[in-house]
């Protein structure tokens, strides 16, 4: 029984981490105009930046040069900064492009980065990865209970990203992003600079995703390049489409549904052969869900809703207009 609970908590932690990335993607794609097919880039950059900043110096059998052994909080800040800088760097050439090309270029960058993690041994220890990484608040509880602590941390992280992305999308800046999403030419006539606005948005999403990458390191206690393939980008896109593009609730819900379908079968103790079958089954299951969603709820389970303001009284407004001699 406790096994099931621990497993559920562990899956929940993973879902919370995916949730952060899905929220960041929703900021770019749901609120803003950016069709980012390379969001895994920032997830990976965040993870590696954190590890390089905080890991202990390499041991004899390891090749990486830098393990600065800095405190974790510095690692988190460093990761966010690295994500932001990476976004700026990738955004410089790619945000000049039309939507469709942006999509391709971001995908290509993600692949380039993965090759970098694999080939730059001195920085990343290559395919062997870096293991045995420390987790925050580890000493607080006994080992068995730590799953709960990490879950609580991930939920806090998720709530923080949720609150921030929500605040951003409801701000004047968020409205500008939405305007660009809806009609770039018209947005320009409102004085909105597409390139600059998109860049800020992209950098913010990069930073959020990078922080999610740190949680992923805590979750796994290791980094290897294989964790940052473009599969993750597609997973997160799938989660967002299922949940509802443009809706934070949808982004959260989509991430949890996705992880539930994708990872809960792992719990079953089965033979290797059955495991292979199950793996392809779950992919088929998710594909089926995606098709059903697109067919019957094309805007997702929680479609984007209208932004509601507490509107001033209409009659008073009409009066006011008259008084000022506008009508």
């Amino acid at each position: 029984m406790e096994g099931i609970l621990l497993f559920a908590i562990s899956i929940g932690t993973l879902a919370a981490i995916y949730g952060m990335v899905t929220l960041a993607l929703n900021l770019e794609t749901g609120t803003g105009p950016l069709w980012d097919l390379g969001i895994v880039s920032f997830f990976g950059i965040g993870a590696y930046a954190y590890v390089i900043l905080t890991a202990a110096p390499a041991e004899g059998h390891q090749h990486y040069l830098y393990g600065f052994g800095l405190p974790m909080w510095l690692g988190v800040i460093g990761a966010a900064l690295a994500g932001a800088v990476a976004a700026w760097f990738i955004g410089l050439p790619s945000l000049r492009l039309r939507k469709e090309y942006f999509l391709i270029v971001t995908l290509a960058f993600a692949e380039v980065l993965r090759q970098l993690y694999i080939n730059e041994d001195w920085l990343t220890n290559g395919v062997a990865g870096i293991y045995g990484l420390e987790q925050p608040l580890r000493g607080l509880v006994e080992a068995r209970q730590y799953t709960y602590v990490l879950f609580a941390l991930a939920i806090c992280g998720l709530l923080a990203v949720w609150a921030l992305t929500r605040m951003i999308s409801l701000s004047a800046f968020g409205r500008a992003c939405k305007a660009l999403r809806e009609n770039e030419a018209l947005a320009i006539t409102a004085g909105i600079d597409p390139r600059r606005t998109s860049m800020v948005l992209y950098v913010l999403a990069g930073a959020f995703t990078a922080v999610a990458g740190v949680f992923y390191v805590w979750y796994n206690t290791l980094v290897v390049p294989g964790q940052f393939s473009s599969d993750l980008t597609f997973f997160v896109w799938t989660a967002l489409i299922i949940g509802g593009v443009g809706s934070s609730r949808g982004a959260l819900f989509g991430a949890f549904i996705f992880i539930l379908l994708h990872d809960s079968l792992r719990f079953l103790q089965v033979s290797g052969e059955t495991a292979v079958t199950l793996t392809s089954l779950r992919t088929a299951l998710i594909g089926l869900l995606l098709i059903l969603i697109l067919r019957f709820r094309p805007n997702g389970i929680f479609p984007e809703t209208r932004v509601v303001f507490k509107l001033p009284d209409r009659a008073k407004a009409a009066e006011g207009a008259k008084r000022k001699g506008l009508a």
Partner: protein
Amino acid sequence: MLEVRNVSLYYGGICAVNDMSLEVAEGEIVGLIGTNGAGKTSLFNVITGFARASSGTVRFLGRDVTGYSGPRIAQAGMLRTFQTPVGFPKMTVMENMLVFSRADAAARPSIFRGASPARAVLEEAMEFLAIFGLAARAGDWVQDLAAPELKMLEFARAMMAHPKMLLLDEPAAGVNPALQGNLIEHIGALRRRGVTFLVVDHNLRFIRDICDRAYAMADGRLIASGPTGDVLNNPDVIRLYLGGGAGEEAA
């Protein structure tokens, strides 16, 4: 206020605007007429930073704004509309208003401050919506508006920016006569508030009703200019419109 000097614009080998010059003084409503493909929209694009002139200069409020980007021109106080009415479909009418407000423009750089707009801004927006008969639709998505409502929204949101100059690209196209009267009133009211206009339209009666002066274009060139009545009675212009099929009905 606006001064266009010898502007030309080429699309590949096609010359869309050929050595055009025009002037609009503060407080004027100036018309720009010409058959389809004459280059009116292209000239608008050059003036508002949507296209880069191959040659010539544009001055606005005494400043040389040739080659300014679209957002910069907008920030300088020149607003334009598009030939087909547009809005931000999946944003509410109120959000559409806010995007054009000065308050939003000023708040854009501070991403982490003040999520919801100030009361005064909402009230101002509501007043403008009331004037244009859209107050009841403030909370609805723009994609749910009827075509005439969208037309009104174009004016209402322009007010939020407090523009010095409005460039209207075929405001009367596809608008029924009753609503046209409405438009004329609104344009008049805006002018009294100090807005200067440059208006493109095919509907010559509409142009006659609102414009002090007019310019006529054909094949990218200026063919006539002067007081609206004179331009509309210019033999070249009449020939053009009769030949072009727009017909006497309009005049």
